[in-house]
């Protein structure tokens, strides 16, 4: 009980001082990685923007600064800007802090290439395969890239989570049901 109260007091102090602990952490990391931009989003959440070719250096810096775990690699498809945003979500047990490491790469399939971070965080192998399966980002150096992952043979190579993938037309073609999926929704038979 005493412990819990102490923690609550700590949290209040931190919010009062505009997340001092997180600011110090960001400063410490940015000193070692001057090519990155960083900011504090809120208490226990920090984020960085890194150029795509320096991602390996940056993740090594993070690992030296006690970010022990990689939680996820998220891909966001920005169709108008023609870019994929890759968000490497890192979690530190020591600092009790999430770090979102954001980087941007072009979304054309032949240019969407990233260096793998498998040797820094072994779990990244799985997440990279995931990103490749659904978005077509190719991670160079990950030898399991061509191995089948979640998608079935029929969708392999279609990258169905890209924004410009015509889902409705594909569903019509695949399941051979036409009358239910009228775009005008006049003929909406369920």
């Amino acid at each position, binding site marked *: 009980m005493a412990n819990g109260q102490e923690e609550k007091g700590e949290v209040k102090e931190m919010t009062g001082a505009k997340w001092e602990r997180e600011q110090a952490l960001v400063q410490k990391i940015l000193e070692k990685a001057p090519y990155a931009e960083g900011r504090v989003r809120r208490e226990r959440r920090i984020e960085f923007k890194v150029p795509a070719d320096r991602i390996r250096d940056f993740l090594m810096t993070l690992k030296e600064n006690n970010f022990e775990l990689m939680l996820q690699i998220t891909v966001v498809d920005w169709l108008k800007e023609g870019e994929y945003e890759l968000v490497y979500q890192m979690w530190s047990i020591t600092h009790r802090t999430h770090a979102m490491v954001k980087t941007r790469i072009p979304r054309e399939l032949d240019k969407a290439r990233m260096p793998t971070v498998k040797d820094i965080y072994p779990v990244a192998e799985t997440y990279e395969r995931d990103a490749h399966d659904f978005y077509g980002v190719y991670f160079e150096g990950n030898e399991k890239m061509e191995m089948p992952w979640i998608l079935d043979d029929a*969708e392999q190579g279609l990258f169905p989570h890209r924004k410009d993938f015509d*889902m409705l037309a594909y569903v019509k073609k695949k*399941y051979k049901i036409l009358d239910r999926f009228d775009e005008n929704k006049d003929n909406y038979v369920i």
Partner: protein
Amino acid sequence: MVDWRLFEPLFEFARKRSLWIVAFCTGCGGIEMPPLMTSRYDLERFGMMPNPAPRMADLFLITGYVTPKTLKRIIITYEMQPDPKYVLAHGSCPLNGGIYWDAYNAIKHLDRYIPVDVVIAGCMPRPEAVMDGIKKLMEMIENGTADGWKRYRENYEWYKKNQDELFGEGWREREARRWIPWLMDKKKKEK
């Protein structure tokens, strides 16, 4: 010789009272199974129980949406069951796609690929609704209208045609061989 057809009503009564379920949960309805099986809605009083082996099972519960990848396993498991076999589909997703009506990876009409005896609508149906469906299925078994397994035999060409259209010809063998190149690392290195 005994004419076993005479005893058919007795057999149907016995079948209705000892439905064993394949322990194969697809989709979100698997979470409705524990309350259904355990003390609150206690299905075991009807002589039903989940059973790990499809060779000994009578009832196949499709609990929720079915992806093409799962459907391959469902078809294989369904064909492994011995012959009076019944299929009960939970929820709107096997019925017409449900909320996945425009998703590339969910089956829209399950009854094109395997015969379905009873469909329970809802998203998700409560355990009471499932029990109602089971009661309906028991009635159907007793008066002989739960004949999905006969329909599957008689119309096998039609079902097979639909399955092949979705998965491509020879999908069983392809699925069995799919992982072989990736499992045999040594052979790959030699190449």
